[in-house]
Structures are given as structure tokens and as C-alpha cells.
């Protein structure tokens, strides 16, 4: 089938402002959007800028807004975004992050917020040359959060940063939960202090946009709410 890709273009070196450019591509309904973008890149217009790597939804490079919904170009099939011959698919860069070129955004701020929650296991207790024990139930308590590929789709989907640019965002908060809920971690208080803020967990207003778009099906909003409960419980414990 033949479809039109309506792609937002912007090169800060040469363009006053962004504009949309259209490309016609011949695709199969089961092709990935990334396949269509590669067709443009290799055979129509080498100047189109976008990131890509694994092409099957595990590396997180090709997050973008597809018909207004954030997601990965390699995990989005044409049949899910264009039903008929001649349909148009609009592709824009992720929101809340500065555009560097076309669909490429600067993810530095996104990664800084990830770093802010101390995304690493903290446990200085000695281990006797083997693994730390953890029951299957304890392991599954934070399972879905470990799937995160830091693609920033959730960050772009979230409405909060529009009004509150310092909001840590869904991905960083989900990763805070990943360590808070890990029975091996010993930095609960440190981490709770980071997320017990307006920029942290309390910034979330349960819009569920992150959960809706997450290409890894992580129940992000639920994890943030569990984190809020952990904060409350920790405070109740303190005061009792």
C-alpha cells in the first residue's frame, strides 16, 4: 500500500522554525514504521534525521510521536497507524526535550533525571563470595520496572512537564521504585527523600499517559502510586 509520511523537519543551522515535509512510501501493512523511515532515508532523502538501532523494541533509540501518540517506530506497525491506501501518518519528535535535528531530541535532561534517583543497587554489606538470596516473590515485586529501556516515550507523553519542567518524570520515578522495591537494596531512606518532593512522586497527578504509551507495558502510574504509599508508610513509622 501507498502512504504519506508527514514528518516534522528542523535543522537549527538552517531553519528559522520547524516545518512538515511529506514523503510517499510503498509499504506492507505488517512493515514497521521504522522500515518506512529507512526507505526514505536510504532511497529518497538522506538528510532526514532520526535515531535507530535494534529495530525490535529493546534499545529505545527510535522513540517519537506517531499520529500524536508516543512510541517506538520499530514497534509500531503500519497497519496500526494507517488503515487505507493513501492514508497519512504524522511523525514528530518527542516532547519536552530540545530538538537537535528533525526527529532527534537531546536526551541529556532525561538522563540527568534518571541519574538523580541513584539508579543503582546500594548495599555495602559484605557478601560471602556468592549471590545474595532473594525469594522468587521478592524478585517479582519489582519485575516490570526492570524492563524499562529508557526510551523517553513516557516522558514525552506525560502532561506534567509542560507546567512543571523540573518534574523527574515517569521513567525516573519507575526506576526509583525498581530499587525501593528490591529486597537487596539498603538505601530506602535516601531514595525516598529524593522522590518525596513536588518534583518527585507527588508531581504525578495520575493522568496515566505514561502507562498508556509504555512500549514495555510497565504499569508506571501504579508503581508511582506504590512509591507514594511507601513514602507515607515510612513517615507513619517515623512518627509512631
Amino acid at each position, binding site marked *: 500500500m501507498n502512504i504519506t509520511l508527514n514528518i516534522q523537519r528542523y535543522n537549527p543551522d538552517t531553519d528559522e522554525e520547524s516545518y512538515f515535509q511529506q514523503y510517499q512510501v510503498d509499504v506492507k501493512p505488517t512493515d514497521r514504521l521504522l522500515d518506512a523511515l529507512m526507505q526514505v532515508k536510504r532511497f529518497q532523502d538522506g538528510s532526514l534525521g532520526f535515531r535507530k538501532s*535494534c529495530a525490535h523494541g529493546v534499545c529505545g533509540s527510535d522513540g517519537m510521536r506517531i499520529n500524536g501518540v508516543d512510541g517506538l517506530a520499530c514497534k509500531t506497525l503500519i497497519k496500526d497507524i494507517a488503515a487505507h491506501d493513501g492514508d497519512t501518518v504524522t511523525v514528530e519528535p518527542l516532547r519536552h526535550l530540545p530538538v537537535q*535535528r528533525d526527529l532527534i531530541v537531546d536526551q541529556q535532561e532525561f538522563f540527568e533525571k534518571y541519574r538523580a534517583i541513584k539508579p543503582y543497587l546500594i548495599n555495602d554489606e559484605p557478601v560471602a563470595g556468592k549471590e545474595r538470596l532473594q525469594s522468587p516473590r521478592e*524478585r517479582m515485586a519489582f519485575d516490570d520496572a526492570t524492563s524499562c529501556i529508557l526510551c523517553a516515550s513516557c516522558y514525552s507523553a506525560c502532561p506534567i512537564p509542560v507546567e512543571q519542567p523540573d518534574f523527574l518524570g515517569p521513567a525516573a520515578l519507575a526506576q526509583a521504585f525498581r530499587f525501593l522495591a528490591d529486597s537487596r537494596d539498603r538505601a530506602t531512606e535516601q531514595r525516598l527523600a529524593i522522590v518525596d518532593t513536588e518534583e518527585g512522586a507527588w508531581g504525578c497527578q495520575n493522568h496515566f499517559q505514561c502507562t498508556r504509551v509504555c512500549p514495555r507495558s510497565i504499569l508506571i502510574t501504579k508503581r508511582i502510586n506504590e512509591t507514594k504509599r511507601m513514602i507515607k508508610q515510612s513517615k507513619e513509622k517515623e512518627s509512631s
Partner: protein
Amino acid sequence: MIHNFDTVIVGSGGAGLYAALEASARSKTAVLSKLYPIRSHTGAAQGGISAALGNVEEDSAQWHAFDTVKGGDYLVDQQAAMILTEEAIQAVYDLENRGLPFNRTPEGRIDQRRFGGHTRNFGEGPVRRACYAADRTGHMILQTLYQQCIKNEVSFFDEFQVVDVIIEDGSCRGVVVVELATGEMHIFAAKAVLFATGGFGRIFKITSNAYANTGDGPAVCARRGIPLEDMEFYQFHPTGIMGLGILISEAVRGEGGILRNRDGERFMERYSPTLLDLAPRDIVARSILTEVRAGQGIRGDRRIDDYVHLDATHLGKEVLDAKLPDISGFCRTYLGIDPIDAPIPVLPTAHYAMGGIPTDVHGRVVIDREGTIIDGLYAAGECACVSVHGANRLGTNSLLDLIVFGRRAGQHIAEYVKDAPAPRPVADADEFARAWIDRLLDGADGPHGGAITDEMQVTMMEKVGIYRNKADMSVAVDQIQELRSRYQTVRVQDTGSRFNTDLLELIELGNLLDLSLVTAVSALHREESRGAHSREDFPERDDDTWLKHTLAYLEGDEVRLDYKAVDTSIWEPKPRTY
């Protein structure tokens, strides 16, 4: 711009990050990555990392080493294999201690499962050796190591593309790099450089590899006189999603999945009576292709793209959900089927380079049969060839290779740079890279890279794929040479400097073409069948003539071949049956 570091690591997958953790603790270290580090292809590895922990049944590092040697069809350097499997055990505990969320046994220990070619007691039957985190073990390794690098404040240079290595008087002096964001060329002068750039599956049409897997490290080294070892040994994973090549982990068969032909027959019973569906990958891939060629594929039309079924419908929802969730997701997304309801259509997909930059067990690059070292030049991971995988790698041993030899290289570098002379700039170090890139950017009329990429991938897939013969490979060498000369006329369509991904892709294409040539020539000259290298015209293994590693030197448009001995100091080569 010129930077000075003790240590420069090129690549931020498992090997590069582990080396960075070691090297950065004791030397001024920079990690250069063409991607954001967390996007590296280590993250796509699914099934597991093997280590003889013995958590669920008896196991030993020696059995693991033997399986590795036999799996590699005796082209493995055996002392290196012992190091791999002995250090595996502590390496896995280290990863766990650093936070890796392995699946657990009821007792709370790291759970282990079966994988192809891994056996108890020297081949008696399958053993549970693969430690795993669902079917995203590589993802968890990459995440854990990246998290540790954040904790240890490792310096990253994200989206920097290596284009040359500086070697002078038998020593490595640094690398030449293009910064994607600005197009600026940088020289990173260093006492030690580690290449950990991963694989180059993109030389083939159907591959499980990422777009980024373009062999930048091996290609850059090859152009500077470093030989590439055993490039004819390229692994096709038996089970890629039909048409797309997306990996369906061997863990599906490790958990009990079964390959079936159009009659529903479990055909591996005929090819590998003991290990069945868990035979090593080269054997399973050939078996699938043999079925397809005999008209036993699902369509039965004997065409190259016919396929077989991987049946996981009997595994139960619980196993699929807890142990294979990503695989199930891939099937739903790309095939519109759920593996609990329907078998998965699969076909072999180009997956892993056993060959690469020759190194010793410390990651030091070795440039000839005598074992001559280039001071300060290191390689680890898929881009390197230690050789622990020989003619065919066992599943789960790639993640292990990254961790064990990434760490060893990082440790050796940390010691080496203490006494090494300070990095010093080399005059005109970027001359070659500038000439290359200026030519691509000069605005002259020339073809774009798309058609050349396509033709290269089809040629390699059809003529230097699973089954090979002299006639096809001779044609392939000529075709690749023709594509390389056409490459001399290609030009970018984007002459800008900011995020010029057009330029990046043409640089990558140049690398892939050089590696295609070296692969095809190495394969054409090895007149035997061993592991993943299957010659229709030489169907037997020939230890008298060919029990040796290939060293291929790219010299302009020619490839000169030499050979070096295999370490068989522990186990005498024997016929390989399963």
C-alpha cells in the same frame, strides 16, 4: 579537538562497560559510544549467561569448558576456554552483587536453565547452566553495568563515531572520532585503547543484529594492518522470526520448545538424537535449512525463505509469562500470534561473529602467528577473537565472554597505563579520516549508499551464508569488490555538520564492505567444513590441513591470508556428534 586520556574505550556494551569499571577506578578513562550507552546491542541478548554454579544440579567448570571446545568444533583455544568457564562463576556472582535481578530458585538462589550444547559429564545429556533474568538477560547486564558506571562516575562521550586508530612504532596512540552532534573531528590521544564495538551482522540481509552493528572496530583495525581472525566463522541463529530475523531465544527450546516441519515431525530427532532441539546452533540451523530444501518446510516449496515451526504451545502460560515474556511480546507485535496458541514461524538469522580482532587472554591485540603484541591496543567482546568460540559459539557464552574478557582487559589496561609513556599527539593523525570524510562530503555527484547496502547484504546472505561452495563464494568476492569500487564514488545527500546521520551511515557502509570482503575471502579459502562454516564441496572436517586459525590481512583491495596454531592442550580433537 585533541583530548588526552590514559584509557579510551570504544563501545559501551557489556565488554566496554565492564572494562570501563575496572580501568576507570585506576586511570583517567573515557568511554566513546556511537549510541547512548544504554542502547548498545548487549541489551538485545535474551536467554542467559552460563556459569557452572550448580544451583539446580551438579555441574563443573571443566564440563562447561569441554562443551565450549566441542561446540566450537575444536577450533577453540582450550586454555582460554578454561579461563572463561572458571571465571564465569565469580563473574555471575559479581553481577548479582552489583544488582542484577536474576530469576530465583525457591531457595532464593540464581535460577538456571538448559541451553544448546551445554551438557553434564562431557556430553551425557543437557544440564541447567544458563543463569537468566526472564528473557532479557542481556538487557539486565547492560542496565546493571551502566548503573554501576553512573555510580562510579565514568566519563562518557555519547554519539561519537570512531573512524581511525592511531598506531605508531608498534604502539597504539589513540583514536580519531567524529562527534555526531557537531560533525567535528576529535583526536583522543591515549596510552591504551580498547575496542569493544560489537558485531557486524549487518553484512547480511536477514539478521538479528541492530543497525548499529557495523563492525567499526574490526574495520578500523583492519585498515591499519591488524589481521582479523577466523572471519569465515559466522553464526546463524536457528530461530529468527521469519522474514524479519528478530531473535527468538534458544531459551524457548531450553524451556522445552520443539522444532517441527510441515508434517509436525520433531525433525531434530534425526539430526541430533541425544540433544535433540538443544544441539549447538550450527547443527540446528543446518537441519532447518536441510528440511526446507527437502520440501519439508511449512509451505513445502523448497524456496530459501520457507520456514519451520517452533512449537511452544505446550509450555503453559506460567512458563511463557515468567520466563519468556519478551519473546511472547515479539510474537504478538510482529506476527500477530500468541505462542501459547500457535507455533512460531522461524528461519535462521545472521547472529554472531565468532571471528574478529585477535587477542590474547588479557585482551591485548595480537598481530601475527608469533603472537606479537601492539602495545596499548586491546579488544574485547564480539569484535574480538580470543578464541573461546572457535568455529561455533554456544548460546549464553557471548554474554559470558563480554563479562570475563571485558573485565580482564580492563584490569590489564589499569596495570599497563601505570608505567606506559604519556599519550602524545601524532602529527596528521587525522589525515586519513579527513580525506575519507571530505570525499563523502565534497558535494560532487555520486550514488547514494542504499542500493550498495542492499546488494552487499543479499550477496553475503545468498553466497556466504549457511551452506557455501567455491563457485558461489568466488562470485561473492567479485561482487563485493565491485561494490567497494562503487563505494569510492558514493556521496552524502546531506552535507551539513549537525547530526549528519547520512554521513554516519556511509562510514558504516565502508566498514561493512571491508568486513564482507575479508569474510568472503577467508571462507573461500578454508576448504573443509567445521562448525558454522559448511562447504558443500568439502563436507568433512579436515584436521590434518585445517586445524588452524585464519589470520586475514586487508591490504588495500587485497586480502592476504596467514594461519596460526590452535591450542588443543587439554582435549584431543574428536568427531563431533550429539
